[in-house]
């Protein structure tokens, strides 16, 4: 009985309530979606973001890159978290990236780090992408 009643209710919604509601809506589906979630930073992931994420996933936390990074002794965020954080803590989600502040900005693309990475993370390119993404949020 409960099921029949539920189905009847859903039928009412399908034929009457829902179409009325659709009529009174404003904006496209996408606009309404982004209005709901954009403010929280839940934005779409572009193919470039995807590619950067896949490249960052190659980091195996060995710490070799940090040995060549001249910023470690200079910038507190780099000292505390290391260059590694760019592929781990900061880039795992755009929300983490937003919290990275200007930790990524000091990178001068000296590329001293890249020859040291065993798994071939394209470090300079990633840090540059992430820094500009962080600046945008």
């Amino acid at each position, binding site marked *: 009985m409960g099921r029949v009643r539920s189905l009847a209710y859903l039928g009412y919604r399908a034929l009457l309530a829902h179409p009325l509601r659709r009529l009174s809506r404003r904006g496209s589906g996408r606009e309404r979606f982004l209005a709901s979630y954009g403010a929280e930073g839940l934005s779409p992931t572009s193919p470039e973001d995807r590619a950067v994420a896949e490249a960052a996933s190659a980091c195996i936390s*060995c710490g070799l890159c940090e040995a060549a990074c001249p910023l*470690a002794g200079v910038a507190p965020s780099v*000292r505390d978290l290391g260059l590694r954080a760019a592929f781990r803590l900061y880039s795992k989600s755009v929300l983490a990236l937003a919290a990275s502040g200007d930790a990524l900005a000091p990178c001068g693309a000296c590329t001293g780090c890249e020859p*040291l990475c*065993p798994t071939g993370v394209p470090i300079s390119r990633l840090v540059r992408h992430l820094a500009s993404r962080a600046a945008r949020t």
Partner: protein
Amino acid sequence: MPADGAAITCDVLVVGGGMAGATAALAARDAGARVALARRAPGSTGLSGGAVSVAHDPAALPDAPFGGRAGVVESARRIAATHPGHPYHVLRGSLDRLWTAVEFATGQLSSILAPPSGRNRWLLTPFGKVHPAATCQRSMVAGDLAEAKGVLAVVAPRGHLWWDAGLVASGAIRARPLGAPETRVVALDLFLWEDAALARPVDLARLLEAPGAAEEVGRMLAQRLPRGATVALFPPILGLSPGARVPERVEGAAGVQVAEFLSDLPSVPGLRLQRAVDERLAASGVTVLAGEVHGAAGPGAPARVGGREVVAESWVLASGRFVGGGIARRGELLEPALGLPVLASEGAFAEAGAHLAARPAASLTVRDSRSPQPLLSAGLKVDAELHPLDADGRVASPRLFAAGAVVGGHDQASDGTGMGVAMLTGWLAGRSAAAVARARPVLPRRG
């Protein structure tokens, strides 16, 4: 050798710049060959902890005294006898050359490695384990528990939480009945300011290289040393480059022997070793090329490395395992440089042959993480001449050799034979590759 940018013709191309590749290149060079070496980035060698592990006695009981244990070569023979998949077993006919290979490699790297003595050294790790190694970096020799007399003082830098001197010392304390010296912990007021307290090992090492820093540490140490102390054991951060002479300077100011214990990650000793390898290669007349080799046809055919073309009579593949990139698993196990079949491993699938590569990950691993894991020891199958074999057991090419972790059958990361296999296979492969290139050249000789 031709100038930058031009194509290179040589006798031996070594793929991989870790211990195995460097030993192969230097051995081939030593035999008179023209050698090129292609390397991309550091691998296991650049991440090692400072020990050169060749073999330790598998038959020794845990409470056997250090002095009573089998020497390095005898230990390797025992491993060969009891581990059928291990490279030492495959090379059991050449194990008499093991010592020559180890002496050769450590001799080439004498700027950083101490000469081996034939017996294992017993070194402390950050985990409080006592680790046997045929030799180690010079800055670590005085920490050999089997040789240290008097009292060993493990230094605890008060300002930094990364290492626990008590944990390190516990290994020596537990090994007292085996012959380890009496051990104490001594706390020093090191790294007490915020920048240092949160710094990574490499930065701490650099701090100690600064003028006066090492001497200051030595003086501090002299004041706090327990009575009878003869050796002070530091965390592995005594300078980044041997040229800065940090251990020597500390020793001078402290009046006792100074050593480092082994390192986990991030590893300053690993960096030092890789730099020493790079420097030796550069100074030895080996042409070092930066870049990867993949999708290549093999010896005799041109290969592109970092924008240059290389043709070599014979090749030594010493590209490492998963960290080095010599073996990869993307759904199935493969060897990216030449597409050779991955056929060898230890443990349950030692004889799995052609079916090894496609098995799901879980079936290639065993529940108890301490047991041998086929997946983590997977690599190329080689014959006693170090030629990689195909699925039918045939030699892929008489001009192609493999050395180091790319050879399957040993878990180079954790079974205590990684460096030994690298040196032995590197030396044998390098000499064989040079010999083949000389004896049966196929490339047109240039003037």
